[in-house]
């Protein structure tokens, strides 16, 4: 447990030292702020005190940003050889993978915390469903966690960061929309399976304010599978 935190802390400080964290946060706030407040089907157009439109936009922004954050996590260590230094220290492969996961998740949480002024502003404009807002944030965090673990898995497969990035997007796009599209054109059991695999359905049901254990199981499974896969890749080096 201590080792996970040690790895996570180094990773976090490397995010901030390399300016990656600042760029990511500024870009995220810029994108989501622009589309939430200024352009498109914005909050005023809906004429309802709700953060739904922000969640919809953050859902897409994070989808693209997260692979950019995770792509270097293991690929870079493989390339520079520091992975050998890490793996010959008395910590397990799981500690390394979990530490890196934790660091990126914390960075996303920081970015999301910085959007709380949106919530505060809107709640002064009208009656807002507080429960739905908090669950919406929870949904974003769960979704981010799922993509982070996929990103860490693809980063563990290669020592080329671009390959890791594209592979993460490629796997991610299936969960993001393709499974949903497939499920709508299929019926019966197979349609149900794809419906369950689609991340957007789970995210929407949470951000509408319904917390179902089915959705939690879904997100936790993806997180676990991704991290477990990355760990296995590291173990397999032997």
């Amino acid at each position, binding site marked *: 447990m*201590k080792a996970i935190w040690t790895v996570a802390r180094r990773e976090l400080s490397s995010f901030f030292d390399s300016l990656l964290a600042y760029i990511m946060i500024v870009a995220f706030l810029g994108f989501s702020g622009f589309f939430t407040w200024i352009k498109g089907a914005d909050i005023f157009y809906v004429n309802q005190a709700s953060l739904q439109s922000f969640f919809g936009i953050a859902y897409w922004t994070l989808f693209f940003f997260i692979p950019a954050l995770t792509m270097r996590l293991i690929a870079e260590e493989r390339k520079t050889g520091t992975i050998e230094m890490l793996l010959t220290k008395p*910590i397990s492969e799981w500690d390394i993978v979990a530490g890196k996961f934790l660091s990126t998740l914390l960075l996303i949480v920081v970015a999301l915390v910085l959007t709380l002024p949106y919530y505060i502003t809107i709640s002064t404009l009208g009656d807002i469903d507080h429960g739905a807002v908090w669950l919406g944030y929870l949904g974003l965090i769960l979704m981010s966690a799922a993509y982070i673990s996929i990103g860490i898995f693809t980063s563990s497969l290669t020592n080329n960061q671009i390959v890791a990035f594209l592979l993460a997007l490629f796997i991610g796009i299936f969960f993001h929309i393709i499974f949903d599209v497939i499920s709508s054109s299929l019926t019966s059991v197979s349609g149900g399976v794809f419906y369950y695999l689609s991340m957007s359905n789970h995210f929407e049901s949470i951000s509408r304010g319904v917390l179902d254990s089915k959705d939690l199981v879904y997100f936790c499974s993806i997180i676990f599978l991704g991290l477990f896969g990355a760990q296995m890749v590291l173990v397999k080096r032997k």
Partner: protein
Amino acid sequence: MDIRVENLTKRYGLQKAVDNLSFEVKTGEILGFLGPNGAGKTTTMKIITCYLGADSGDVKVGGISVNDSPEEVKKHIGYLPEHNPLYYEMPVIDYLRFVAQLQGVSPEMVNERIIEMINTCGLKGEQHKKIRELSKGYKQRVGLAQALIHDPSVLILDEPTTGLDPNQIIEIRELIKKIGREKTVILSSHILAEVEATCDRIMIINKGKIVADGTSEQLRKQAQGDELLRVAIEGGSRDEIFTALQALPSTALVDFASETQTVFELQSKPNVRSAKAIFELCASKGWYIGELTPIETKLEDVFREVTAK
């Protein structure tokens, strides 16, 4: 802590990188690991440090097996990998703190250990610089410092002086010698003089097998075999002296060592020494000895001989 390597085998595809290798390093010994590129030095070291797993066989560090409890073994080992990988964007002191925490140095000891490492490895002026900004020699010191931060009883150094200039090589060598007094050290290198200067024992491996093992004197003797002398005799003609030397009962072979001067190379028969006979020969003929030197086999020759096969 001692290291016992038992019947270690590791394959890459069909090729055996390490082939049924067994050896032992006693506590406090500095072992020099020699061999041509691709001989299996690095692979063996990676298996000892638990980075790679063996296909068969075992390594026991202080009696603890790398197969059964790698995390326990790793606690006792300080390892400097081949290309000295470091986090370049980190300041030296932060990096050492990070490694200390990974190694499980207790929180109240961490600062003390970092200060000690900075002093031992001569990093005082560089401690707040980012590793990227350091020269190669200083990077190597950081690599050594991180390997030593938890005061390990076993130290594995994979080519610790490659790419350094002669001054830096001597500094790092001194450092290893100083540190190596209380620790069990395995050090690999291409530079034979370096291994000779720093190590108690030398082991040469080729194609994953041990081809020579012993102190540098032992290795030389082993390769040299029969006595070989360089003799300069004056006072007679070349042919005369040559035939007289050849006629000595202890002589196996005589050869001219110079085109014009009366200098010869004389190989004795097995287990016989020729010096006395040469002296008596000269005394009886009225010649005198200008030079009489035993020719030593250089470690380079040993190396070439045992790894050429």
